[in-house]
């Protein structure tokens, strides 16, 4: 594959710009907010597309990585260190540019970890956690891997919803904007909406570029070969476990980046972002988009999340995504067939339905 593989990335970038222009010309700037949020959810789906479509692994815990990123950024950038400002360690950190001083919406002065440092910590933490749980669980297959990642998601949700320092069910609010210099920032200010649209979708385009690069590289080919025939891949020197863990960590990093940025954009994060239903939603988007089909996944993700955020699905939001997942698995479009995990899961759902009908 030569440079031609970058054509869809350019097309995506053009589409992003075209949508922004159309929205501006149509005087529907208020759509941008949902489009920005949808972009970050698309970024999670893109990472999951790499994991499910290319590495053949399922994760029902990706909302956990999203929340890990978001909560780390939120907690570090809102924890007020002003009382410690005079202490040597705080002065040292401040002199390194790791701390930032700002005023929250109530006019209270806050000294906290700078957003970029919190972002770096969030990504590093998500990568470390993904590696730590990835090494033991990646050898699991089918339902077992699904359940293990589900368990991880549930743990993160419980921690988020049950820890005082994380605001329990209220989550963390008053997260400062992520200042990028020149008066620009990732945040909810209406004046920065167009800028934020381009930051969010710019990250999606960047993520797509990274995935296109990876899948066309030595490691991407190794992942594809594992899909084709694991024993033959091993006999050619491909370390199955290593490749799969790398894909798992990469997809977790995608989710954490999205979580961190969206938290700054929204100015808050709550435990619902870590919920199992959110994880199911990401899986549903990837399944509906055609698994390894990144462009299908991104378009599906953009459309479904946009509709969901516009409130089109009303109180049936979660039900809609669950239904999409079931429908896709039952009627198995092309993308699904390649993945043993979902095939196993599909068999499981199918048997359940049969059992239900027989009863």
């Amino acid at each position: 594959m030569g440079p031609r593989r970058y054509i869809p990335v350019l097309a995506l970038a053009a589409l992003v710009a075209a949508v922004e222009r159309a929205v501006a010309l149509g005087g529907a700037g208020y759509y941008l907010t949902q489009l920005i949020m949808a972009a970050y959810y698309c970024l999670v789906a893109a990472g999951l597309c790499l994991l499910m479509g290319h590495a053949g692994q399922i994760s029902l815990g990706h909302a956990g990585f999203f929340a890990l990123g978001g909560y780390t950024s939120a907690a570090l950038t809102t924890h007020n260190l002003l009382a410690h400002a005079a202490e040597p360690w705080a002065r040292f950190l401040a002199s390194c540019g790791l701390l930032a001083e700002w005023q929250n919406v109530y006019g209270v002065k806050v000294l906290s970890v700078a957003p970029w440092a919190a972002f770096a910590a969030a990504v590093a933490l998500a990568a470390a956690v993904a590696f730590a749980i990835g090494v033991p669980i990646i050898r699991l297959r089918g339902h077992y891997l699904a359940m293990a990642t589900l368990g991880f998601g549930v743990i993160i949700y419980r921690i988020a919803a049950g820890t005082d320092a994380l605001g329990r069910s209220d989550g963390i609010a008053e997260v400062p904007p992520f200042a990028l210099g020149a008066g620009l920032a990732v945040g909810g200010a209406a004046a920065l909406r167009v800028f934020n649209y381009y930051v969010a979708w710019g990250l999606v385009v960047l993520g797509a570029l990274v995935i296109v690069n990876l899948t066309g590289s030595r490691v991407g080919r190794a992942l594809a070969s594992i899909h084709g025939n694991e024993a033959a891949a091993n006999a050619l020197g491909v370390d199955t476990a290593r490749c799969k863990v790398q894909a798992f960590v990469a997809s977790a990093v995608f989710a954490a980046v999205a979580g961190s940025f969206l938290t700054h954009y929204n100015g808050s994060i709550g435990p619902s972002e870590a919920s199992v239903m959110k994880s199911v939603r990401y899986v549903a988007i990837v399944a509906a988009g055609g698994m390894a089909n990144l462009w299908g996944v991104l378009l599906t993700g953009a459309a479904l999340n946009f509709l969901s955020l516009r409130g089109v699905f009303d109180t049936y939001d979660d039900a809609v995504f669950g239904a999409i997942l079931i429908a896709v698995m039952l009627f198995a479009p092309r993308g699904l067939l390649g993945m043993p995990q979902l095939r196993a899961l599909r068999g499981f759902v199918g048997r359940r339905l049969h059992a239900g009908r027989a009863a």
Partner: protein
Amino acid sequence: MPGALLETHALSRRFGGLQAVQDASIAVAADSITALIGPNGAGKSTLFNLIAGSLAPDSGRVVFGGRDITGAAPHAVAALGIGRTFQTTRLFAHMTVLENVMVGRHVRSKAGCIAGMLNLPSTWREERRIREHAAATLADLELGGHMHAVAGTLPFGVQRLVEFARALAAEPRLLLLDEPAAGLNLHETAALGRLIERIRSQGITVLVVEHDMSLVMDISERVIVLDQGRVLTAGTPLEVQKNPDVVRIYLGDDHA
């Protein structure tokens, strides 16, 4: 055996109640073509799997190039220079022929996950070298015309050759071939024999499991006979052909 590239020492492997390989000690001289023969179920493929690390032995050792590799994972064994083809062809059916052979370069290249994501200049230069080497390997086996075909769509004989090319692309020191002539016609088998001799002349040691006796007798310097998991005898093709035990297991007691 002095000068042996590969040695196994009393390898044993049991499947439930079945002793598939028992106390098998073999030696493969460097730069030789050695044949491993024996009736169906003798344990030939199991012995290959024990050498290549896809099965762990219950006891015994595998020594390759003077190094104990017993229990090493298959990918690690491959990295040390042992390549293999399988009894039933195992191509990456959904990938193109070129991509299949490019995977063969895995152990000879090093771009990692992050380098791949960033596609740095060093990464794409390596990628170009991988592609060129794979294309040259295919051209060498006269498979250049199939380069962009999806592997799974090719005729059986061509698939076998592609699997060969894929293993060769790794430039192994030792190549394990499990029944390479199975399913090939007379013409293809003769070409295969010449190919194996050519591979050896390039400095690759070959250990081949084969049922086609004329091919075995033609190309190999040494023949090892396995029966019911045990090494029955080993020697030159002529010695082995004359061995009454070998005649018995191949032709039945009447001929002994």
